[in-house]
Structures are given as structure tokens and as C-alpha cells.
């Protein structure tokens, strides 16, 4: 017992420096960031240690294990230890467990501090399940140290192996139960303070990692016992590192590669970029944008954007674009909340504002895109931006009626779409505001417009969002978290609609590396959700397609990456028009889920 205590004391003396360094990085730096955030943004101190621990916990495990092994296996130190009256197994086990304890304390304590201080308790599953991962990584690095016995080479090999532990389960379906992301499935940070922790997939992950840790520990003991060694050199290092990087890249390609075939494509003339697409089948239109220098000097980077309307026709031979018709540049923004005149897709209604920031005048605008005509048609009312009783109006068109719904209810006759005529204008007292997102259910108060059915009232409310049938989807961004949520209509009455959450999708680490989520268009068609992600021209703009049907809604089933992709318009037959630097007609994703 005394002998073991001495061994533990010796190991602790040698590895404790890693603990202090880890505390400095995992606790010290987040404290500084938390203080800075408290002074700048809020008066509540919150500490975010989990990004640091998740990012560098594995690296710490590698460094501790490699340092512990290579230190005593270099030169004649190994001979010294073998000559001591201490069993090699006991010596190695003391080394292993002291180092492992340092790694686990260094990683788990910062997470515990975050859970105890922050309102968001999403780090809790990490404390429970990630120690198994760190133990496996530590064990692998320990084995690398025992076999290679050169610090830098063992560390490089262990880091390459760490990449494989993270990425192979993503690439190889039979290994998916070892995927790190399964541990964080219950990490519902934005959905409530206390996430659930225990699940079958988590238990399987923990068992797998524990098994791996035990296996590499046994191999380490055997390697030292039988004096197994691996001769390492430059070639081996280059090969192992590049192989790991290629496997990582291949796994990303496997997960995020384009699987929607290009059926037709057309270059946009005059450097125009497609910003909006409207197409019901074979005919439609696009709104394009082109940037021109206001003062074309070499030093000037100030640009003026011009917007064009072009008709689009899908034919058997290709895509036909119409001539450009100049439209106001605001269409790239205000068209998000427009409505089409029924039967006249080129005629749209939207609401604009004029006047002071706090008290504005709202106008109903009519734009005839194919003629380039856009004018305010009717003055609506004075709008107080920060008043709790006033909200931005909802627009809803049905048949020959157009409804403007908010603190007043204005009903217009649009038999002549270009000259809407006010039929009634009455105080209404409706203020629209979506319920807090992220809850398991959300209830929306519907505007009690007498001439509209409950379903039409719901359509008026859900119009700016992705709503089809009974499914509503939304890409929610809270702080730095980005999550796609799907709800299904559970109850619809005259006055309210109740939705239940049926699915949630959080982008994986690989997806964030290859293009941080920045959704522009979110369109639902035939149960498939098309999302255009535009993180920037050089940061992988692309389209993601999710299946909202079946027992597991929001399965990622399609991906299409192409230059400058900004917008998508799914067509009724399963194809989709995608706009960016070109206009592409793409086929449906290969797995149609529940079809």
C-alpha cells in the first residue's frame, strides 16, 4: 500500500501541471469572457466553459497520457523502472489512473461550475457522458505513448486517432452508436433549463467508449509487458496525419455531399444574382440583384444594388429567362412579407412605412412586377412601433378579398388587383406576436375576422413562416445556438391554434465547419422542408432538405452546394429551382422518406 501511495504521489507531482493549465484555460478564460459580457451586455454573470472543454478536452487527454508514458519510457529511465522492486503492471496502472483522474477533474469541474451558475443547464449531459469519451481518448494516447515512446510522434499519432474516434462513427453506419453527437441529443439548451440526461443511445455510447478504454488499457499493459515498440519516422507521421485529415474530409463529404442532381441550369446575364424565386410549376419569375460601383474608382468599394424582375419558363430543353424589368431594390427585403393577388402572381401587396422611427405611417403598396410599377395605394394608419397594443399588420388574400389585420381590420375588394378598394375599416384590437419558441407546445391567438374560417385565420397568422397542412417549421436562433424546429397542429378553434413540437434538428459540428447556419429561405412543400443557407459567398452557400414526415421528422435527406446559392423554390413535382450566381433546376433528394 505504501508503495502504491508513493507511485501515485510521484505521478501526481508530474502531471498536476496539466491540471493547473487546464483550469486556467477551461475556467480562467471563460470567467474573463463572462465578466466582459456582464459589463457589456447584461448584469448577470454567466460562464460558458463547455465550448472550451468540448474543444480542448480531448487534446488535454492526449497530452496528459503521452506526457505520462513517454517521460518514463525515454532513454534509461525505463531500465531504471524495470530494475525497481515494483511490478510493471502496478506502476503502469498507477500512472494510468492518476493521469485519467487529472483529465476527468480538469474537464468535469468547469462543466459543473457552468451548470451551477448558468440558467442554461445544457452542460449536464456532457458531465455525465463525456468522461467516457475522454477516458477512451486518454487510453488511446496512453497506448500510443507505450508503443511509440517519442513524445511528439506519439502525440501526433494520438491526435490522428482522436480525429478517427470523432469522425469514423459519422462515416460508417454500423458505428453510429459511437457518434459523439448522440450524447448531446438531450442537450436541449433552448428548450428548458434542465435537460433530460438518460437515454438508450447515451448508454450505448458510454458502454462503447468504456469498452474501448478498457481494451486499449489492456493493450498498453501487454505492450509494456512484452516490450512491443513501433518504430516511428517522418514518413509514418506524415502518412498518419494526412490519412486522418483525409478521413475527416471524406466523412464530411459523406455527410454533406450534394445529392440533388442538376437537371438544367442557366447562367444569369450581366452578373445578376437570383434573390427570390416564385414558380408554381413551369412558369414563374425571379427577382435578381446586381451590384454596381457608384463611383467606379479603384479605391471605391461602395456599391449600389439594382433589382430586376425576370420571367422564368421551364421547358423541355432548358430554362428560359425573360427580359429584365427594373424593380425597387427593397424587393429583396420587403417581399418576405408580401402576398400575391390570387390568380395574378406578378401583382403583389406589401406594407411599407414612412415617417419618424417611433410613430410611423403604414401604407399598403401594390407592385406590378412585370411592368416595374410599384406605388403606395392606400394609407392605412399611424403605427406606434413600441406600443404593446400595436403590431405590424398581417396581410391575407383570399378570392377577391384582401385583409389587413392588426389594431384595425381593413377589408379590401381586389376584383381589380391593381386598384384595391376599401370595403370596411374598423377598429379591431388584434396584436400579433408569436408565442415563445422552443417550448414543447405553442398556442397562437387567431384574429377573429368574421368572414374567415379558422383555417384561413391560421394561414393569415402563419403566412410569413413555413406552414403546410398541419406542419409548421421555423429555424430558431437563440444566442449562438441555431436549431430547426417542427410543430404539428394539435388543436384548432375559432380563437386559437395549438401546436405540438414533433421534431428538432441542431446542425452537427461538421455542418458548422462547412458553412455556419444562416438560413435565408425556409420553404415547405409536400412534407419536405427546403432551407437555403447563406453564410457568405466563400463559406459554402447551400440548400438543405429535411423530411418532416414519419416517426422522426426533420431528417436531413438532401444537400445542394453551388456558387452564391441564396434562395430556393420547391416545385409541386418534387424538383426545385435554386437561385444564386446561376439558376439551377435540381431533382428531388434521393430518399423520399415516407413516399
Amino acid at each position, binding site marked *: 500500500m505504501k508503495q502504491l501511495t508513493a507511485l501515485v504521489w510521484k505521478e501526481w507531482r508530474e502531471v498536476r501541471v496539466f491540471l493547473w493549465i487546464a483550469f486556467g484555460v477551461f475556467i480562467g478564460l471563460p470567467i474573463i469572457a463572462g465578466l466582459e459580457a456582464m459589463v457589456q451586455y447584461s448584469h448577470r454573470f454567466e460562464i460558458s466553459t463547455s465550448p472550451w472543454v468540448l474543444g480542448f478536452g480531448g487534446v488535454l487527454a492526449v497530452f496528459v497520457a503521452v506526457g505520462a508514458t513517454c517521460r518514463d519510457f525515454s532513454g534509461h529511465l525505463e531500465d531504471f523502472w524495470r530494475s525497481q522492486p515494483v511490478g510493471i503492471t502496478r506502476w503502469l496502472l498507477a500512472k494510468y489512473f492518476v493521469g485519467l483522474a487529472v483529465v476527468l477533474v480538469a474537464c468535469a469541474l468547469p462543466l459543473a461550475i457552468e451548470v451551477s451558475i448558468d440558467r442554461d443547464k445544457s452542460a449536464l449531459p456532457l458531465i455525465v457522458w463525456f468522461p467516457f469519451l475522454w477516458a477512451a481518448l486518454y487510453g488511446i494516447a496512453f497506448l500510443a505513448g507505450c508503443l511509440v515512446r517519442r513524445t511528439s510522434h506519439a502525440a501526433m499519432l494520438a491526435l490522428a486517432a482522436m480525429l478517427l474516434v470523432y469522425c469514423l462513427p459519422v462515416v460508417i453506419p454500423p458505428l453510429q452508436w459511437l457518434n459523439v453527437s448522440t450524447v448531446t441529443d438531450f442537450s436541449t439548451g433552448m428548450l428548458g433549463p434542465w435537460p433530460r440526461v438518460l437515454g438508450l443511445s447515451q448508454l450505448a455510447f458510454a458502454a462503447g467508449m468504456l469498452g474501448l478504454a478498457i481494451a486499449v488499457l489492456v493493450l498498453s499493459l501487454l505492450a509494456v509487458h512484452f516490450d512491443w515498440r513501433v518504430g516511428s519516422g517522418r514518413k509514418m507521421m506524415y502518412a498518419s496525419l494526412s490519412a486522418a485529415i483525409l478521413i475527416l474530409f471524406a466523412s*464530411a463529404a459523406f455527410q454533406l*455531399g450534394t445529392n440533388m442532381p442538376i437537371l438544367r441550369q442557366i447562367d444569369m446575364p450581366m452578373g445578376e444574382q437570383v434573390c427570390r424565386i416564385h414558380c408554381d410549376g413551369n412558369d414563374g419569375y425571379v427577382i435578381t440583384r446586381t451590384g454596381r460601383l457608384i463611383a467606379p474608382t479603384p479605391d471605391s468599394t461602395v456599391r449600389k444594388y439594382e433589382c430586376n424582375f425576370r420571367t422564368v419558363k421551364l421547358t423541355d430543353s432548358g430554362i428560359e429567362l425573360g427580359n429584365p424589368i427594373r424593380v425597387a431594390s427593397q424587393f429583396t427585403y420587403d417581399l418576405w412579407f408580401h402576398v400575391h393577388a390570387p390568380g395574378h402572381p406578378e401583382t403583389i401587396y406589401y406594407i411599407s412605412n414612412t415617417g419618424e422611427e417611433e410613430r410611423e405611417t403604414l401604407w399598403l403598396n401594390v407592385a406590378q412586377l412585370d411592368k416595374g410599377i410599384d406605388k403606395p395605394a392606400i394609407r392605412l394608419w399611424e403605427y406606434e412601433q413600441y406600443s404593446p397594443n400595436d403590431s405590424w399588420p398581417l396581410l391575407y388574400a383570399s378570392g377577391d378579398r384582401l385583409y389587413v389585420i392588426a389594431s384595425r381590420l381593413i377589408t379590401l375588394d381586389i376584383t381589380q388587383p391593381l386598384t384595391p378598394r376599401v370595403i370596411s375599416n374598423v377598429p379591431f384590437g388584434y396584436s400579433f406576436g408569436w408565442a415563445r419558441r422552443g417550448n414543447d407546445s405553442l398556442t397562437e391567438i387567431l384574429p377573429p375576422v368574421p368572414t374567415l374560417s379558422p383555417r384561413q385565420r391560421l394561414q393569415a397568422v402563419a403566412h410569413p413562416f413555413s406552414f403546410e397542412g398541419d406542419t409548421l417549421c421555423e429555424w430558431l436562433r437563440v444566442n449562438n445556438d441555431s436549431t430547426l424546429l417542427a410543430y404539428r397542429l394539435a388543436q384548432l378553434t375559432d380563437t386559437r391554434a395549438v401546436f405540438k413540437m414533433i421534431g428538432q434538428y441542431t446542425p452537427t459540428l461538421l455542418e458548422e465547419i462547412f*458553412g455556419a447556419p444562416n438560413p435565408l429561405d425556409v420553404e415547405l412543400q409536400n412534407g419536405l422542408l427546403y432551407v437555403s443557407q447563406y453564410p457568405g459567398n*466563400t463559406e459554402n452557400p*447551400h440548400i438543405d432538405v429535411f423530411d418532416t414526415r414519419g416517426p422522426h421528422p426533420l431528417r436531413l435527406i438532401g444537400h445542394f452546394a453551388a456558387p*452564391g446559392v441564396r434562395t430556393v423554390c420547391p416545385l409541386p413535382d418534387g424538383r426545385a429551382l435554386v437561385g444564386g450566381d446561376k439558376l439551377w433546376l435540381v431533382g428531388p433528394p434521393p430518399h423520399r422518406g415516407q413516399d
Partner: protein
Amino acid sequence: MRNLLWKEWHEQSWKLGFGCIVLGALALIGLHSRIVADQTLIIWVNFLGMTMLPVLSSTGLVPAERGEGSLESLLALPVKPWRILAAKTAMGIALCIGPMLVAAVVSLLVAGGREMPDSAVVAIYAKSTVATLSLFIWMLALTIQLPSEARAALVGVGLLVFWMLASAGLADPSVPRWALAISPFALFYGVADQIAEPLPAVIVLAVQAGIALGLWIWASKRLSNLEGQS
């Protein structure tokens, strides 16, 4: 000279294979799966080539020989030092051009004319290759007297960082336009940004060739000094 070239080929050919496999595989996987837009992926591959190949090639030529203690034997041969350096430079150029050439061919075969015209793909690879060669000559000259490959690699990485930062500064509108021509990244700079008006390629190539020649002569003299010391 042929013997010197054979020696370098014998020692460094595995690096050529390594570079070809890494860059070619990255281009093949990325363009085949279309994980990002073709232009973005090609720029990634080129950026990796520009950062990896000069370090890989320059550190393995002279500093590695010094580290292994074989440089003195080499300099003791009845061959002028500039010939030794010429053979090493030729091998280094092959190490820089070969992988870029393989990646370019793979890119053209997989994605030629798909999103970009072939000429645009070739232009990006050509500009990147010029930058790679320029960086290689810089690293060769600055690391020729270093005692080990590791130190040379550190200097190489430092030089990369320096030129990246310096290129951003030289491209600032307040700096005369021609000043960017001295940067190894002069042709590559702004390749992803079609707004920028690039410098005429002839001027950049002439400036880069002049700099490379000057650096090489300086490196040759430093190697001759080493011979005197040994």
C-alpha cells in the same frame, strides 16, 4: 549534375507522392461529393498546396541534410555548391509543381466546365503554383543555414504568416497598387473576389522572377559560405 538530381529524387520522391496523394485526394473527394461550390473547393485545395508544399519541400532539402550530418559530406564533393543548390532547387520545384499539377488535372476531370470554365480552373492553379514557387524560394533562402528540419519548418510557417499579413496590408487601397507585386500571393490575392482589379500578370511575374533570382543567388552564396566553414 545527373547524379545530384538522382540523389535528390531518391531522397525526396516520397514527398512528391505524398503531396500528390493529399492534394489529389482532397480535390477528388471534395469535387466529387460537391460538399461546397467548385470554386470554393478549388481555392481550399490551392490554399493547402500553397501553405504545405513550400514548407514540405524547402525544409527537406538543406536543413534536413544538416540535421542528419550529411551536408558536410555533400559539400566536400568536387562539385560547386551552386550546382548542389541547383539540383536541390530543381527537386524542390518538382515537389511544388507536381502535386498542384495532379490536383489541377483531377479538378478538370471531375469538375471541368461544371460550374467554372476550364480556363478559370487552370488560372487559379497557375496563380497558386506561382505563389507556391515564390514561397519555396523565399523559404529555401532563409532556411539554408538552419541546423534542423524542425527549425526550418518554424521559420517557414513564420514566413507564411508574415506574407499573408503583409499581402493584406499591401492590398489596402491606401498603398500604391504596384506594391502588391512583391508579395508571393500577388496573383492569388483576390482570386475569390471578382470585384478586385488584379495587377497585370506580366508585371507580377517579372517582379516575382527578379525576386526569386536574387534570393537564389543569395542562397547560393550562403551555401558557399557553409562550404568554407566546413
